[in-house]
């Protein structure tokens, strides 16, 4: 339950060798995410979305500018900003239960409370009955659920998600987006975490977000910052939904024209 500010953030990757040009991945990106808000950062492949997310988590330093949570500059990575990785990054030697438990153990939460939190989060993502499976025994969609449950279990202030549904097949992706929408719709707004999701899917962004930050092609700059005021759960066939999608598509038409 925190707000997050990205202020004038640039990222330059130095070249690997002398004749290798440095890469400007992000160019003075600024936006603000309110408490309880679900914010999507929408942008083309290679525009610096992962870079931005890793900087928010604290794994990369900004070359310029600052990222702040509740007005304070962020420091090293911490459970207060937990991540859902694009490739899930589940620990393959741990069962579903143990994966979710890991962060809680690191926080030294007593066993009894731990069990309760694990159970609650397993139910939230709809994985009851799969507690003792290993990741390799799960489908892609189920792995992503575990990864979301694991990140939520440590009770972070901000949840960071890197194209969480991109690796799924179309059917699973739609299902997961719907589930995520359900979780967002049902939970009490004051209970909701501040969430930031990077994605290249307009649909996904419109289904889930309260705010959509659109980035340009590389180097990523903020192209638009759109507030989405549609009621939840969102109805994809509704005229408002379609209109908003078209608005965003038009808005960023030149950035996305290559996409079908």
């Amino acid at each position, binding site marked *: 339950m925190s707000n997050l500010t990205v202020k004038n953030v640039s990222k330059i990757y130095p070249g690997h060798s002398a004749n290798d040009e440095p890469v400007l991945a992000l160019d003075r990106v600024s936006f603000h995410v309110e408490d309880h808000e679900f914010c999507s950062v929408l942008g083309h492949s290679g525009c610096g979305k992962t870079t931005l997310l890793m900087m928010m*988590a*604290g*794994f990369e330093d900004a070359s310029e500018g600052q990222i702040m949570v509740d007005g304070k500059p962020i420091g090293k*990575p*911490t*459970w207060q*900003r*937990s*991540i859902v*990785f694009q*490739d899930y*990054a*589940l*620990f*393959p*030697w*741990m069962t579903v239960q143990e994966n979710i438990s*890991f*962060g809680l153990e*690191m*926080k030294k939460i007593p066993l009894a409370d731990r069990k309760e939190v694990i159970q609650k989060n397993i139910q939230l993502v709809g994985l009851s009955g799969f507690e003792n499976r*290993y*990741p*390799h025994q799960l489908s892609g969609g189920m792995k992503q659920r575990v990864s979301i449950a*694991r*990140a939520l279990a*440590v009770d972070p202030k901000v949840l960071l998600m890197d194209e969480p549904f991109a690796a799924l097949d179309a059917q699973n992706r739609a299902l997961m987006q719907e589930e995520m929408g359900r979780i967002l719709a049902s939970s009490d707004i004051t209970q909701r975490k501040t969430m930031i999701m990077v994605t290249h899917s307009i649909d996904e962004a419109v289904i889930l977000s309260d705010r959509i930050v659109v980035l340009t092609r590389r180097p990523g700059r903020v192209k638009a910052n759109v507030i989405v005021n549609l009621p939840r759960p969102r109805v994809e066939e509704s005229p408002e939904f379609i209109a908003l999608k078209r608005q965003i598509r038009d808005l960023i038409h030149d950035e996305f024209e290559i996409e079908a």
Partner: protein
Amino acid sequence: MIKGATSSKRPPGLLAILGSKIKNLTLIAVLLCLWQYVSVAVLDSTSRVLLPPPTAIFSAAWELLSSGELLRHTRDSLKREVVAFLWATISIPIGIAMGWWRTVDQQLDPLMEMLRPIPPLAWIPLSILWFGIGDAQNQFIIFLGIFFPILLNTINGVKGIELNLIRAARCLGASEGNILWRIVVKAAMPQIVTGIRVGLGVGWMALVAAELVGANSGLGFLINDARTVLRTDYIIVGMATIGMVGLLIDQAIRELGRRLLPWSRVMGR
């Protein structure tokens, strides 16, 4: 529900397994018959000494078994392999340290790269001078054979760990110590077990060579000793035993890996 599913799909009966195995042994059976024929009917009695027929080898095997001699030599060889392996497990912490800390790698890597290309067998003369003939010298040679495969696999396992796993652990609040013990070591385990498998195999080969020249017991000693008295049947029985024990060690490690690392497919069939 799950119980019902497994019991309804029972493994095929022992007889069926044996049946299919026997079919696969056709070629071997034909070759054995051919060998028997050549040895008995084609070779004269002097050259038959060099290639005794399978029947003679089986009776030699029975002789060596019933006298307990074969078991004694196998036990001595296995004991050397096990002791050397226990010493060689020092390569696991060294490999983890080399894979994880750059400075350790930078210091140790040149040393390891200098020692590694020297085949274990090239150490035999020096090791005989250092340790004399016997267990210590043999174990030293086997140790060298086991050490490097485990070391290299451990280093690769640690270095090859996915960056996102470490990042995930770190953003879930894991300390550096927890990351090393609960993430890095675990993630490298399948490769470490692979290293152990390869290492024990190399060690077993080195063992036999070490025993050929520097031992008074063991399977390598047995076959070399048999050579001096021209007992080709004993030599062949010894060779077959060496092969079979080597295979059994490998199978045992695979099975162990499968049991201990059910999440990994490294030991898969």
